C-alpha cells in the first residue's frame, strides 16, 4: 500500500507537468492561431502566402519532429539554450525545465496552425450580411469583428476545436520524447523499474482528464445554444 501511495505521488507529479503543458499550450496557441488565421486571410498577398505556407508545414510534418527541431536545432546552430524557470514561491514551488519550454513552444506553434485553419473556416462561414449590417450601422471594422463576428465564430468552432483539444491532452505524452518529466515519463520509469500497473494507472489519468475536458466543452456549447447560427 505504501508503494501504491508513492506511485500515485510520482504520477501526480508527472500529471501536473502534463496539465501545465496542456493549459499553457492552449493559452498560447488559441490567440496565436487567431492571428495566424488573420494572416492566412490577409489581403496583403505576401503575408497571406507566407502564413499559409507556415500553416501547411506545421500541419504536414510530425509534431514529434517539430519538438526535436525546436529543442535541439537552435542550440546546435546558434548555441541558444531554452531557459528554465523555478517559481520559488512558498505556495507554488515548481521548476519548469528548458525541455518543458521547448516543448511548450513546439506544441503552441503546432496547435496554433491547426486552430488557425479552424478559425479561418469559422470566420469565413459567417454570412456576409452580418458584416454589412454592422457597416450600415456605422460600426468600425474592429468592433464588427469583436462585437458581432467573434462570438458567432466561437460558437461554430467549438466542436472542431474540441476534437483538437482532446487530441492535445493525449499529445502531451509526446513531451516524453525529450525527457520532460510529465505523466508518461514517470509511468515509463516505473515500468522500467518492473512495475506494470502504473502505465494503466497513467492511462486512467489521461482518460479522466479528457472526460473532464469534454464535459467542459459540452457545457460551453450548451451555454451558447441560444445563438442560432
Amino acid at each position, binding site marked *: 500500500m505504501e508503494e501504491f501511495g508513492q506511485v500515485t505521488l510520482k504520477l501526480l507529479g508527472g500529471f501536473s507537468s502534463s496539465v501545465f503543458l496542456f493549459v499553457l499550450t492552449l493559452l498560447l496557441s488559441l490567440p496565436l492561431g487567431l492571428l495566424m488565421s488573420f494572416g492566412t486571410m490577409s489581403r496583403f498577398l505576401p503575408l497571406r502566402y507566407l502564413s499559409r505556407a507556415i500553416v501547411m508545414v506545421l500541419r504536414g510534418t510530425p509534431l514529434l519532429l517539430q519538438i526535436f527541431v525546436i529543442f535541439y536545432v537552435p542550440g546546435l546552430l546558434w548555441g541558444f539554450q531554452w531557459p528554465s524557470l523555478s517559481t520559488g514561491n512558498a505556495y507554488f514551488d515548481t521548476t519548469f525545465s528548458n525541455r518543458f519550454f521547448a516543448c511548450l513552444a513546439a506544441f503552441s506553434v503546432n496547435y496554433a496552425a491547426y486552430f488557425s485553419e479552424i478559425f479561418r473556416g469559422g470566420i469565413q462561414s459567417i*454570412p456576409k*450580411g*452580418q458584416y*454589412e*449590417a454592422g*457597416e*450600415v*450601422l*456605422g*460600426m*468600425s471594422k474592429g*468592433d464588427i469583428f469583436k*462585437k*458581432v463576428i467573434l*462570438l*458567432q465564430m466561437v*460558437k461554430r468552432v467549438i466542436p472542431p476545436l474540441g476534437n483538437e483539444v482532446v487530441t492535445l491532452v493525449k499529445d502531451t505524452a509526446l513531451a516524453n520524447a525529450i525527457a520532460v518529466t510529465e505523466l508518461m515519463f514517470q509511468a515509463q520509469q516505473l515500468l522500467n523499474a518492473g512495475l506494470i500497473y502504473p502505465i494503466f494507472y497513467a492511462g486512467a489519468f489521461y482518460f479522466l482528464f479528457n472526460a473532464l475536458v469534454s464535459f467542459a466543452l459540452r457545457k460551453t456549447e450548451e451555454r451558447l445554444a*441560444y*445563438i*442560432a*447560427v
Partner: protein
Amino acid sequence: MPYLEVKNIQKSFDGEKILDDVSFSLEEGETLAIIGRSGCGKTTLLRCLNYLESIDTGEVYLKGEKILDASYSKKRKKEDSFRRHFGLVFQSFNLFPQYTAKENILLPLSLQRKYRQKSGIMVDENSNLDEVVLGLLAKVGLEEKKDLYPSQLSGGQQQRVAIARAMALSPDVLCFDEPTSALDPELTGEVLKVIRELKEKTRLSMILVTHEMAFAHDVSDKILFMKGGKAIELGAPEEVFASKKEETIAFLSGYRHSNPSE
C-alpha cells in the same frame, strides 16, 4: 431643392452595366417605392446608397450637400461614420444572433456614442440609451419581446426588430430591400403594417423596394419602375399604374391577379 437627389448613377460589375443612369428625387417625409423584375438592379441601387458598393459615375445630394460620388470609396470619410445618411433594412433581417432584440438596437447606439466621445464630440451623457431603444421597440410594437433572442422571434418579429435597429441612428432616409420577401405569407402583414405606420405617424423619408404592388401603390408618394438597370418610369403611383408604356404594362400584368396584401 429636393431633400434627396440621386443623379445619373451608373454601376457596372465585371463590365456589365447593372445601374444605367438612374436618377430620382425625393422630398422629406416622402416614400419612394422601387419596383421591377428580379435582377433589374434594385438591391444594387440600395447598396450603393448605403455605401456597400461604390458607384462608377453620378452623384447623390442630401439637402443640397453632396454625400456620394464616384470618388467616394468604401473607405469612408471620418465624419460619415458619425452621420449615417441612410439606414437599410435587409431582405434577410441580418439581426445579430447573440444579442437580444434590445441589445441589437442598443449596440449601434452605444458604439456611436463611444466613437463620438473618442473624437471629442460632445455627447449628451444624460440621454438614456435604454429609453431610446424602448421607444424604438414601441414603434414596431415589440416592447414586450425586448429580452428575446432572434432565434426566439418569428420572422416577422425579427424584421420588425431590424426596422427598429435601422432607425436607431436616425437616418435621413430609411431604405427597405424587399422586407417581406423572406417571410411566410402570413407574416408579411405585420411588417407592412409597421411600415405603413411609420409612413403615417413619422416624417421619415423612405425608399422601399418591394414586390407587394398593392402596398407600393397605397403607401408610396412616387414609384420608380426599373428594368435592366434603367429607370423606365418615375412618377406618382396612379400615373405609373396607368402607364401606357409597353414594358410597364407587361410588368404590371404579371401582378394583376395577385392578392393585395394586408
